[in-house]
Structure formats: C-alpha cells, structure tokens
C-alpha cells in the first residue's frame, strides 16, 4: 500500500496537543519545576536538585500521611467492593423497583463532595447530630472532634455511604449483562445459590470489579474535600491523608518546594497502581479472547 506523506496532517493533531499541554503537561512541568528549586521569595529561584524529595521521603509526617492513606484506602475497598456486589445482587432485575433502586443508588453520587462533608459533619455531631447524639444515647462515648477512632469511624462510614453506590451500579450493570441461559443452565445442573455466584456471577463480574476497584482506589487515594470539611484532618493528624497533608504544606505553610515534591511522589504512586491495574485488565482481556 502506498502511504501519502503529508506533514500538514500534523496540524490536525494540534488542537488535542494544545488541550493536553494546557491541562496536563504544562501544570505538571510547573510542579516538577517547583520541586527541584527553592522559591522562597517571589522571583528568586535556587536549584536544589533532589533535596526536597529526600526531605519528603525521610519525613515522619509524610510517612504518617502515607500509612494513613493506605490504611484508609484498604479499609474502604474491603468494605465497599463486597458490600456493593451484595447490594447489586439483592436489587431487582427489572420492573419499576429496579428503576427506583437505581435512582436511590445514584443519589449519593450526585451530591457535591463538600456538601457530603457538611452533611456528615452535622449528622455526626455528638450534641445535635442524629448519628452522634444517637450513639451517645445508646451508651457509646462518641465524639469525632476529639477521638481519633471516632473520627476514623465517621470518615470511613461517610465514604462507604458516598461511594458504595458506584460499585453497586457497576456490579449491577455487569450482572445485567449475564445471559439468562447461564442461570437456566445452572438450575438444570442443580447448582446452589452459592455455586451460581461463585461459578457464574463472580467470573463474569471480574472485569467490571477490576474497574470498580481501580476507580475506588484512585478516588480514595486522592480524597480531600469530604474529610477536610468533616474533620479538617484532625483530631491532631489522625485523619490527615495525603491530599490534606499536601494542601497543608502548600497553602498552609507556603512550602511550595516540599509540596511540589510530595505531589510528584504522590502522582508516581497513583501512576504505578494504574499501570498495574491496566496490565491486569489487559491480561484478562487477552485470556478471554
């Protein structure tokens, strides 16, 4: 086949290139720029090499935030994925109630994130919030504003409330795409309810669950707004996750070099995890075809 060489074709790529440059490459390079220099006074730039990175990677504070971040993401994945699948399995397959359930499930996803934080902030207040007051009336000593454990409990509960729906919707879509013949065949083969789940539904949900875990991982890994509004990262540093720590460094302390280095490390971690999942998914697809 003859290829026509026409370099003007590159102009067609230009709009996309500009867009990507504006919202990805230029901001990212700016951050890289900050992370490698000291910009103490406006207009004054001093090359410091990897010093910011060494500082961040060696700091107790960053370790703390990172560990908290992984624990948080781990907990919500362990809760939200099985819970989401369970709810999806329990939802009606068709009819009016299926639509009602879908709308109900979509509701938490439609609420702006800072509003979610505000709702739970008030809901969990020990004196006036239904949850906080209720727990205390039931005899639990609960006050998320000064008990780290209570703060964690509230943040996790809020995230589960907010995001389990996403897993439900994905799993529900995955379940809907399973052909009726599989269920009929399983019935005829005398399969138990558990066997149907284990040998039909779970294998068919595999791809969709990988996507759900990936999305929930990325989203929870950069969680900021809701815990910021709910606890502000406290009490102390108890619920200071990576993003909150990052904003504290950048905006609170105006430590731009350190914050930029944190951003890059943070970015590379997310990238690594995404790549892992992507590879996993591709292998999966290859195996299926």
């Amino acid at each position, binding site marked *: 086949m003859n290829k026509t060489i026409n370099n003007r074709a590159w102009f067609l790529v230009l709009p996309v290139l500009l867009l990507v440059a504006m919202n990805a490459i230029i901001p990212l390079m700016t951050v890289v720029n900050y992370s490698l220099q000291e910009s103490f006074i406006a207009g004054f730039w001093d090359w410091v090499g990897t010093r910011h990175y060494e500082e961040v990677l060696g700091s107790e504070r960053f370790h703390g935030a990172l560990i908290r971040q992984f624990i948080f993401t781990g907990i919500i994945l362990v809760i939200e994925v099985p819970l989401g699948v369970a709810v999806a399995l329990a939802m009606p397959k068709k009819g009016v109630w299926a639509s009602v359930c879908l709308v109900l499930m979509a509701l938490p996803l439609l609420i702006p994130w800072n509003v979610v934080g505000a709702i739970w902030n008030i809901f969990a207040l020990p004196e006036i919030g239904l949850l906080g007051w209720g727990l205390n009336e039931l005899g639990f000593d609960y006050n998320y504003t000064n008990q780290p454990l209570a703060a964690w409990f509230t943040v996790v509960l809020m995230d589960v409330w907010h995001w389990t729906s996403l897993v439900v919707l994905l799993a529900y879509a995955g379940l809907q795409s399973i*052909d009726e*013949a*599989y269920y*009929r*065949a399983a*019935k*005829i*083969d*005398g*399969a*138990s309810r558990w*066997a149907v789940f284990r*040998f*039909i539904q779970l*294998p*068919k949900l595999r791809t969709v669950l990988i996507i759900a875990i990936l999305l929930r991982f990325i989203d929870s890994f950069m969680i900021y707004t809701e815990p910021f509004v709910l606890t502000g990262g406290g009490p102390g540093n108890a619920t200071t996750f990576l993003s909150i720590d990052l904003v504290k460094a950048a905006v609170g302390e105006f430590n731009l070099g350190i914050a930029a280095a944190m951003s890059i490390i943070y970015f590379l971690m997310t990238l690594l995890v995404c790549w892992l999942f992507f590879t996993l998914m591709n292998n999966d697809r290859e*195996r*299926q075809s």
Partner: protein
Amino acid sequence: MAKITLDHIRHAYGPVSSPADYALKELDHVWTDGGAFALLGPSGCGKTTLLNIISGLITPSEGRVLFDDRDVTTLPPEARNIAQVFQFPVVYDTMTVRQNLAFPLKNRGIPKEQIDARVPRILDMLGLSTLADRRAESLTADLKQKISLGRGMVREDVSAILFDEPLTVIDPHLKWQLRAQLKTLHREFGHTMVYVTHDQTEALTFADKVVVMYDGEVVQVGTPQELFERPAHTFVGYFIGSPGMNVLPVTLDGATASLGGETIALPGGARAPAGTKTELGIRPEFVKLGAEGLAFNVTRVDDIGREKIVHGTLGGHPLAAILPEGAEVPAEPRAAFAPEGINIYADSWRVETGA
C-alpha cells in the same frame, strides 16, 4: 429416560379473545421413550414455546405435560430431571473441561467413583479427552458448545435432553461431525431427545421423528421419508426439500385435475370438500421434462453440480423441476408429473387420493 405426553396443550402469552391469540395451538401427542425428535419450523412458529413448555420454563395455558405417568405441568425445570443445551455455549469459565462435565453430577451428590467413571466416557465420545484439564474459558466457541453438549449428556437418569438450536454457533464442517456424535450418543445411551431447529438438514439427519410446526401449529409428525413423500400440509412440502414442493391451483374432477385448460391424471380419484381451495403438490424430483405432458416455459436453469434445477412456468404458475446429472433441457420442453409424486390439498391440508 421417559415417554413425554403432551395432553391437549395450548399456550397464549397474553389474554385470549380469539383462537388466533394462541402462540401455540392445541396439540396432543405422545413422544415415545428413547426417541429422537426434532421440532422444525421457521422463526416464530412456536417451536421454542413448545420446548419451554417441555423444559418447564413456561406453564401451558391449557393442558398437561406428563413424563411417563408423572404430571410435571407445573414443575420448574430443576424439578423435572431434564438436561438442556442452549443455542449459545454455556460453560463455567473458571472450571476445567472435566469439572464442567462433573458439575451437574456433583450437585446431585453422585458418588465420586461414578463421576470418575462417567465423565471420561463422555469426554472421550466428544473428543475432548486431551483438553480435559484445560480451563473452559480459553477454548473456542465450537469446543465450548461441545462442553455444553457434554454437560447435557453426562447424567444417565435424565427424563429427556432438550436441544435448543445447539449448532447455531458451530462452523459448518464441524456441524456434520457434531451431529454424527449426537446420533451416536443417542444410540448408545437411548435418552429421549428433543431437538429444536429451523434447519431441515439438521432435523432430518438427527431425528427419527420430525415435528413440523407452522404458525403455532404442529402440521405434521413423521419420519423424514413421510415428510418428503406425503407432506400433510403444503407448508411441509414447501419447507422441506430443496427446492420445495411445487404447489399449483387445480380444479378436481374425479380422476383428473385440471390446470388452466389442461388435465392431469390422478392416481385414483380425489375428492375435496365443496367450497375449498384445491391444489396439486408435486416435488421437483417427480416432474419429468420431455416430449410429453404440459407446456412448460423455462425461465432459469441452476446448475448445482450433481443435478440441474429448472425453473419455469406452467400455465402461468411457477414450477421447478430437477434434471438428473447429464440430462439436457429439451428444446420445447413439456412437463409430465409422475403419478406417485402427486399430492392433492384442500385448503392447504392433504386429502387422501385413491379409490
């Protein structure tokens, strides 16, 4: 293994205000134990409805279904002790081929020694032995459908095995092979088998008895030969055979039928009820082109290798004839009808000819 009795079955999906609302019109048949039956008909003729009634997915609006002498009309599929193979391969992806076949047995608590004896036998018959420990997921659609077939055959005690167009996804050259294997398995194990298809070749090669359905009605139950020689309904004549039976409007007059101005001798007299539409059916195989018979205008000749199919008109009506290998179309052909190939129809249903 069981005899299947369909006792005055009728089914409508919605409310019934006229007989035309029945998706499946009344039928009353007994299907013998160990027989191989094919339900043959075009899409929408009710064959899947009938299969679902037998499998228990649908409870018929009227009538009863009996397996041997047990009334199973209202029982769900899992309580009927049947096996079914679907149009598309249904396999348990995460299991190996062997585990797939053992699954229906395991679920029923069959002892391990029996499973270990039965499964390799089926694997062997289907030619899957070398793949026994492969994961089912990694196999092609053909092989997956073989697994589905195997899961259908694996239980020895089933009342019937139902096949819902199981060879749709299979490559043509493998269809012959699988059909032959099914036939072998049927002979070997003697299960009652019901096979739904719209492919006449599949139906005719698989079944001892073919049930031809048309517009929600069973129009004929018969052996392949009966369907070919004595189609009970013009639809059977048209649907089975390639090309199908020629159907010409005629008026009957005792021992002759007349078409346009010409007369055709009938083998014995035929009498149709007054006021019915009478037709003459003759398969292309029984139309002889030569110097005798009725004037025939040739419009097209299809050479299909072993024989030629001659299309033309006779008194304004389309007619097809088959010329044997090597024969040429005569210069001024006339069409003669072999008496043994003539069937007479009144309002599309066959009437007996003869004295």
